[in-house]
């Protein structure tokens, strides 16, 4: 019963937010952010804990894997572009990944955060399944990691497109790459809405950034902590 309620609640909030987003577009009507906020408030009001919500979550996220796999289609359709801009993409991916990790660590150290938090910050730009896997290997706090990853995705999806326009980054390839590298799947969902090229590049960047981070993290951790 609670499961049915949770599913119906989640779907109807999502539909409502999508409708709202068409009328008023802005960072705070970004579907993942606003739907999550409304659902959490409604669950708290109706006394449903996250444990009660879990079965519904498992049903609804079943298609996340296949949806990610579906990104192969726009990547395939834009394959000539991918090959053409390969060097630019690799440059952007490595610079973006390294700067975001280093800046997060420097700020965290400056604010005297614990090593557990610093470790979780290093994987914040990696897609959820990979981030938690790296966290498991490095014995980090998994729920903290998941929270940072999701918040980073939301920040990227909410403010990424505006920030890039503000900084005169207009090339669709560069926009998709930047959002996919930093804001993984949640950012990619936003990039898909902007255009086919943006979505395809963001999806590819998300995958490569995940691999890149999982390869470099174990080596840089000893130097940073």
């Amino acid at each position: 019963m609670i499961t049915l309620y949770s599913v119906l609640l989640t779907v109807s909030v999502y539909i409502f937010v999508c409708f709202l987003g068409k009328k008023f577009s802005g960072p705070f009507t970004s579907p993942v952010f606003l739907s999550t906020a409304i659902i959490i408030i409604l669950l708290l009001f109706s006394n449903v804990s996250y444990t009660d919500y879990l079965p519904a979550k498992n049903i609804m996220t079943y298609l996340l894997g296949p949806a990610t796999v579906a990104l192969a289609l726009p990547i395939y359709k834009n394959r000539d572009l991918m090959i053409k801009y390969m060097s630019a993409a690799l440059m952007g991916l490595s610079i973006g990944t390294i700067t975001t990790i280093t800046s997060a660590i420097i700020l965290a150290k400056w604010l005297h955060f614990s090593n557990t938090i610093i470790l979780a910050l290093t994987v914040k730009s990696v897609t959820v399944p990979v981030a938690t896997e790296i966290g498991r290997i490095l014995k980090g706090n998994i729920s903290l990691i998941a929270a940072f990853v999701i918040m980073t995705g939301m920040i990227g999806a909410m403010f990424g497109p505006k920030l890039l326009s503000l900084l005169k980054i207009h090339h669709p390839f560069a926009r998709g790459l930047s959002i996919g590298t930093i804001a993984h799947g949640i950012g990619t969902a936003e990039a898909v809405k902007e255009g086919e090229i943006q979505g395809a590049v963001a999806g590819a960047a998300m995958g490569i950034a995940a691999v890149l981070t999982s390869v470099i993290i174990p080596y840089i951790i000893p130097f940073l902590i």
Partner: protein
Amino acid sequence: MLIIIVIYQLGNQIAQFFQLKVPGNVIGIVILFVLLWMGVIKTEQIEMAAGWLLKHLGFFFIPISVGLMTLGDILVNKGLYILFILMVSAFIGLLAAGKATQSVIMKKEKAEVNYHDHAL
């Protein structure tokens, strides 16, 4: 739709079998891409399902994000500092990745234009 789900499961199995650090969904992307390239799967066969899944990609992250409600304590105590770090580092990364990519693209396109000019 069925094709996509089967490929996703195949990706998971491969990741598990070879103990890869890359998740099943990323391997699934590679498999589907290769099958499209080899012509085993035609784009028309998956166009509708893939289009629908991608249009609602954001939805599938919502139930996971609702999990943030369990982290109330940490976020109440140090939430603002953490938000500050996450925002600043995300903005720096977005800017760096975007600028680097765009400048390399521009250089490349400029070089191509020059090449054509000389050819003329």
